[in-house]
């Protein structure tokens, strides 16, 4: 398959690399959507099976232990993504800090 004229793909955002990055972001957004869609399907099926309801998920209030666990994961996500521009030794140090032997 030649991919139509894909080998001669024009760019739209000022440079080929910028287009490449935008393509990656659109793919990531697509993957995010597929997961969200799947999550909605899961919620529906779980509710139908009487395991949980959407309301029980929406109204769930984390206890202290769960809240701390969620907060740690949230901080790690933010640090990984927005820390991607930091020097590698800092990134490695941060990541090693998440290891729990």
């Amino acid at each position, binding site marked *: 398959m*030649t991919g139509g*004229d*894909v080998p001669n*793909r*024009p760019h*739209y955002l000022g440079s080929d690399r910028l287009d490449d990055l935008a393509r990656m972001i*659109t793919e990531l957004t697509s993957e995010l959507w*597929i997961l969200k869609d799947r999550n909605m399907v899961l919620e529906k099926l779980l509710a139908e099976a009487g395991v949980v309801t959407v309301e029980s998920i929406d109204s769930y209030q984390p206890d202290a232990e769960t809240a701390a666990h969620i907060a740690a994961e949230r901080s790690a996500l933010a640090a990984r993504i927005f820390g991607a521009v930091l020097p590698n030794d800092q990134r490695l140090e941060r990541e090693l800090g998440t290891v729990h032997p």
Partner: protein
Amino acid sequence: MDMDLRQRRRASLEFLGSVQHFAGRTLQSAAAAQYEAAVPAPPDSLDERRESVHSTLDGSSVWEFDRFLTRWVAEEIYVRALPAIEEIRGGVEKWLDVARPSGTLTLDPDLVPPAYWEHGFHLAPGGWDGHDLMGPAISELVFAYVLTPGGVGAVRAGENLNDQRSQVAGETRRTDYEHVVELGASSGRFTFALRRRLPDARITAVELSESALRHAHALSADKGARIDWWQGAAEDTKLESGSADLVACYTLLHECPAEVNLQILAEAFRLLEPGGDLMISEIAPYEHQNAFRAVVLDWETENRGEPYWREVMALDLHRALADAGFVDIESYGVGGGVYPWVTRATKPAA
């Protein structure tokens, strides 16, 4: 056919529809507003319009991302629809293997497709028949999940592509035709609209793509719509001269080089009996579009696998029809707009 996709495939195709809808409705509308505010009196010629729009919107985020996302979706439909249909191949093949046909399917094993047909057509990997299930993949999955919610080319987001075909079918000059030939029928969306409009006519639908014809043939059986599907080129159908009293085509002309358009008109003239009618639905000429819209449409030429779009839009269709021998030539927008756009003509009575 009801095609139940697996969750990942369904969600990934639906995502494309949403992206195209957002680009077409929100980003493109914002870009149009930016242009119209900056250039209240745009030029008339296409070259000047193209230069005006591109220079005015240079660096505009909404314009550049609208174009980027439109191109991305156009490429991505194949990357997503073909694996989706592969996952359900068994059921699709069984459905395509029509047990109780309605009408006939005539494939030409010796067909040599014209070179222009494989020239980057719609960005399809390997050409339109680059995958044996391309017909159902595009005409079932991509139409349903991407093109209908998202729009494509001259069809704006949210417009119903099937309704437009029915509207055009309703524009035939008569309803008592005996033999209709449709050129470039693809999977038959317009053919079925003609079938509904002209229930007593014999209909022969000509198309190059085997995958589209097999898909159309299966749809015929589902619908109980008696149609004869015929593999061939619109400009050289090999059907009998003077055998039709209506020849019709829907958005075919811009898929072929301008010189082939002239051959198609000559073929239509040959196929028609004296007094027979020709009905063409195509993109409205640029003089009926505003400057921004004309440039967006023209953009398809280099960016969405429509290599002949620009040269065909530059063709004087009325003159070409007259040169081919047609009379009573008229064009108009169905419903008063510019899309769908219909041109009707008649072969002089003997």
